[in-house]
């Protein structure tokens, strides 16, 4: 894992001291809320429905056990004993007191963490593949590139007041597990015919009220030009992105309005200019970073045998575990989606336990996934059964990854001041309904995603089944979307028709799955059947 150098630590420590002073001045009345709000937002501190909310960055979703323990300690000491893992691989605390915020940031800094650039119109925390460094299908570990981009974008003076927020994802495998094409910039590390590594740039994706899939604007940028090319993409956006209208300010609108070709031409022009400026960090810096992400000390002759005679364990292995690049090892996913539970929430005890288990079984490493689950990336197969037993005993052994119960849900109207409707109760009712009817297994892979408003924090556009909360004359109402997908064949869901009330939406989801079951052909997932038969049979069943 990356270790801070003296610059990283000094930057974070300085920021904590600065924020302590700003908070003090706010509490003493020397700063008004109008003056203070942008300052607290720059440190991840929002004001939400019930209290202040703190969003802590988890760069590219990677955590050490010590960091995970700290997240639990913060939940215990300053919040109400839990945290919410988000689709951007971060964690949010819902009950923070302003007077405590500087102490929390100071505590975080002791384990090389912070809340910088988790809000505001800057380059946000960079997300990545949750299986980075472990996946059998990766051509490289994407995290060194994400880390280089993190260092470049942290406090980058030119990009602290962009037209709007800016989200970057970096992957390096065949399968896109990070919804890369739904980011402002998606970077895929690729290999060219000569066997050299480079970066493919996808620019102008996003969700929110105008969802768009990022087109590929450049298929191969040599790694020693990664930062320069990124800078060129941002500069064109910073210059021409719309500042007159918040709803048209994201880069996706610029790329769409200019057209991919014209945007690309302008980026190339800027890139040519920037190449004369020598802004690219030396490759030695990338090598220095890479050394931090060296493989852990895998046991050379670890056995690939797994005793699957325990049926509960066998199901969990089949559902929640994924092939590892190293023989004898496996990637274990911990579902934060117990039936009827709150998607992405974990108690302080559970967070501590996961940290302990990472130390015992996964070389001290954990990952947060954009599906709001936790990963232990490097588990020896010989240890897997023992690990599962401990997880199961703590209510963390649910075997439902990528099923209809593994729902992504934003905080919605239970916590979020922008919400139109509650998301969590809908997720709870749906997972309960399917668990009770025993259909979860039959349905196989089915990605269901819920947002409480059009901002789409719950990725509803990208759900095989998506649900969007709307406000109908002061009453919560839910629209149903079908056919969305993230990853290699990214597509955007289509609205089925008029919305439903809270119970109605649960029934509507069930109806849609019945249409799938009645029509599916061999090996088809819900999404495949939908793509083959189209919207009409679903509409017919839903609205008759």
């Amino acid at each position, binding site marked *: 894992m990356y270790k801070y150098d003296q610059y990283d630590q000094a930057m974070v420590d300085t920021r904590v001291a600065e924020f302590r002073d700003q908070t003090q001045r706010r*509490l003493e009345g020397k700063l008004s809320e109008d003056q203070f709000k942008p300052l607290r937002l720059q440190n991840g501190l929002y*004001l939400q*429905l*019930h209290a202040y909310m703190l969003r802590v960055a988890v760069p590219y979703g990677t955590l050490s056990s010590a960091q995970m323990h700290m997240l639990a300690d913060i939940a215990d000491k300053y919040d109400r004993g839990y945290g919410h893992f988000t689709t951007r691989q971060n964690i949010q605390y819902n009950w923070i*007191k*302003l007077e405590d915020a500087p102490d929390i940031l100071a505590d975080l800094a002791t384990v090389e963490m912070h809340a910088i650039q988790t809000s505001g119109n800057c380059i946000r925390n960079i997300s990545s593949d949750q299986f980075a460094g472990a996946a059998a299908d990766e051509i490289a570990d994407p995290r060194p590139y994400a880390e280089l981009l993190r260092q470049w974008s942290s406090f980058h003076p030119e990009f602290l007041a962009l037209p709007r927020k800016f989200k970057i994802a970096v992957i390096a495998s065949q399968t896109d597990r990070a919804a890369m094409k739904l980011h402002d910039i998606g970077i895929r590390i690729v290999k060219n015919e000569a066997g050299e590594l480079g970066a493919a740039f996808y620019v102008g994706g996003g969700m929110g009220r105008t969802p768009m899939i990022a087109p590929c604007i450049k298929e191969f940028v040599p790694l020693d030009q990664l930062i320069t090319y990124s800078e060129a993409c941002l500069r064109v956006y910073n210059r021409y992105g719309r500042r007159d209208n918040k709803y048209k300010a994201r880069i996706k609108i610029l790329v769409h309005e200019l057209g991919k070709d014209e945007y690309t031409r302008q980026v190339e022009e800027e890139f040519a200019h920037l190449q004369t400026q020598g802004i690219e960090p030396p490759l030695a810096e990338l090598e220095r970073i890479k050394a931090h992400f060296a493989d852990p000390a895998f046991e050379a002759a670890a056995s690939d045998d797994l005793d699957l005679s325990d049926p509960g364990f066998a199901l969990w292995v089949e559902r929640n575990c994924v092939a590892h690049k190293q023989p004898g090892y496996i990637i274990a996913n911990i579902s934060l989606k117990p039936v009827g539970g709150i998607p992405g929430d974990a108690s302080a005890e559970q967070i501590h336990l996961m940290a302990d288990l990472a130390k015992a079984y996964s070389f001290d490493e954990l990952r947060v996934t954009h599906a709001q689950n936790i990963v232990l990336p490097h588990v020896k197969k010989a240890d897997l059964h023992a690990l599962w037993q401990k997880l199961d005993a703590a209510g963390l052994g649910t075997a439902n990854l990528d099923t209809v119960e593994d729902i992504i849900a934003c905080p919605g*109207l239970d916590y979020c001041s922008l919400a139109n409707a509650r998301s969590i109760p809908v997720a709870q009712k749906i997972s309960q309904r399917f668990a009770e009817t025993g259909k979860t297994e039959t349905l196989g892979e089915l990605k269901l995603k819920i947002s409480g408003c059009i901002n789409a924090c719950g990725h509803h556009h990208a759900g095989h089944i998506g649900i969007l909360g709307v406000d109908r004359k002061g009453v919560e109402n839910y629209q149903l979307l079908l056919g969305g997908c993230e990853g290699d064949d990214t597509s955007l869901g289509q609205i089925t028709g008029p919305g439903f009330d809270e119970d109605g939406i649960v029934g509507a989801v069930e109806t849609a799955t019945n249409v799938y079951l009645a029509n599916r052909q061999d090996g088809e997932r819900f999404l495949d059947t939908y793509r083959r038969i189209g919207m009409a049979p679903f509409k017919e069943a839903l609205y008759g």
Partner: protein
Amino acid sequence: MKILTGNDLKTGAVVWWTGYDWSIHVEDAVDVDGEADAIAAREEGARRVNGPYAIDAQREDNGGVRPAHIKDRIRALGPTVRPDLTLKPADPNAGNWVI
């Protein structure tokens, strides 16, 4: 009736104007019709409350106060999905008041 609400500056807690102070209990809220802006400006200046705003509400038969919008009812009670963290953890029907 119109009632005034905001978040406590220090703790962020949801608070309601009682006529002379702020309370975390919505049933303590008083009608501020016509005076909302003046009270809001004074209290914000006194650094006690953050972002105060007036909302529509109804006096209930049992003396309670019910904000007109569901968002403010959730603010008044707490998250419906964590009854243990609401102001009325022991009342199994508290959630119904929100909806």
